């Protein structure tokens, strides 16, 4: 009973210390610099080297639970794409991805207010069926999305005049936190059609997707978690939410390391007492 109570007390102390450690850097930012990894650089290079006026596709395959990690990536990548004068098609394979896209565009448009809906960007909305919807987009975009979010017919949207299938987009950027997401875009768009795919995901999902960043370039780089989002912000010279939150995440990681050390010291003394 006493051991159980001790464990509960320890857990509460850990929660409290972590809460304070995460909150303080958010209130008083430290400003630690983040080094850019090769995966982030690769994704940045794909957008950077895509010619002006190319039509590109962003897929918002996540919901509000993961906005802390993925929304800063979406905002930074949209801003980068706008800065290269690319025309952006937004779609969503997750129902709440539509709202995520709207919010990301709202932020990006503050920096690029001259961008016009239908000419420079369009939100085609949500489509059910995941990988099958992607396969269908590979045959006809118009059949899958007969109109955009506001009901404008596909053929009446100026920037979509020359976009018949997924083969007509310069690259696909999937921001995903599960299934359907990046893996489905690789399987149904990159492999059969050859359209380059890049994207961003949560830190916990990234290890499962790294095998796709290979010599065949199934994935052109990958942004994994808040750190990658802050790396991307560094690359486009932006001090965004990821850069600010990165201090808090760094402190949290360090604190977890301290907890591991304390846990080991405690286990060592427990074993020693047991042996005696």
């Amino acid at each position, binding site marked *: 009973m006493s051991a159980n109570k001790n464990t509960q007390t320890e857990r509460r102390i850990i929660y409290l210390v972590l809460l304070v450690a995460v909150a303080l850097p958010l209130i008083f930012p430290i400003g630690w610099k983040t080094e850019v990894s090769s995966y982030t650089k690769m994704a940045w290079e794909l957008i950077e080297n895509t010619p002006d006026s190319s039509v590109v596709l962003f897929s918002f395959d996540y919901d509000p639970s993961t906005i802390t990690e993925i929304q800063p990536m979406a905002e930074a990548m949209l801003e980068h794409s706008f800065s290269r004068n690319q025309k952006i098609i937004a779609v969503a394979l997750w129902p709440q991805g539509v709202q995520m896209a709207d919010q990301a565009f709202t932020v990006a448009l503050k920096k690029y207010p001259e961008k016009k809906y239908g000419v420079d960007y369009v939100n085609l909305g949500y489509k059910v069926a995941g990988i099958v919807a992607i396969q269908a987009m590979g045959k006809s975009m118009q059949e899958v999305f007969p109109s955009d979010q506001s009901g404008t017919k596909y053929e009446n949207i100026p920037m979509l005049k020359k976009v018949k299938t997924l083969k007509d987009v310069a690259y696909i950027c999937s921001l995903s936190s599960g299934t359907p997401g990046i893996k489905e875009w690789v399987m149904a768009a990159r492999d059969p059609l050859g359209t380059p795919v890049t994207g961003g995901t949560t830190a916990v999902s990234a290890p499962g997707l790294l095998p796709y960043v290979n010599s065949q370039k199934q994935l052109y780089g990958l942004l994994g978690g808040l*750190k990658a989002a802050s790396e991307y912000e560094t690359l486009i010279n932006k001090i965004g939410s990821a850069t600010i939150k990165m201090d808090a995440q760094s402190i949290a990681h360090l604190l977890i390391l301290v907890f591991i050390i304390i846990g080991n010291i405690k286990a060592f003394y427990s074993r020693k007492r047991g042996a005696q």
Partner: protein
Amino acid sequence: MKYKIPLVFAFVCGILVVISEFIPHRPFNMLITTLQDWFMIISGFAILLGQISLFQANIKKIKEKNKDWPFYLAGLISFTVMLIFGLLWGTQEYRGIFGQGEKIQATVGMKPFDYLFANAFMPLSSTMFSLLAFFIASAAYRAFIIRSFESNLLMITAVIVMLGRTSFGGMLTSWLPEGLKFLHLPNLSDFIMEFPNSAAQRAILISAALGIIGSSLRIILGIERSYLGGEK
């Protein structure tokens, strides 16, 4: 008959999809396009079915006063409120039955559905996901203990990756000379992710793919019938 017709459908559709991958020409490419359209239509109905099922399951639990029934009630009320607001005043892009709800928009700044989405659903969802950090911290304290060779290996890897994924980790070893840059924490962390991690992930991916092929064949050939329900 109740089971035979779905089994025949599953066999014919499954075989058609497999053949179309190897012969992407008429008539298979046309048939597969039709099947894809069917799948998207059925998936749309599945959402509706899910909502009905959610209602039925929750109402049953509330009626029977199951454990934690007030939470099921809260879920149902939230669902109904969002549904009604969405139907009556629409969302950002769509009109509702009562139009655009200009008066409400003038008061709260956006439509009721969008207001609740932005100010209730989004913060609540993020909070649920953020709670993971507390559990991870507590689990790390109890689990990463030096016991054996394997546990040591796990702990050392975890420490390197964790430090390598922070801004502070990079600063810790930034003084290393060029010849020892491979020991730089972010580089070490990237190495672990790129080679040992990717190798293990590939093995898992290949095993999972083989498993999917096996279970798909069982479904196509009618050996696996649990998806039909009822019959064992």
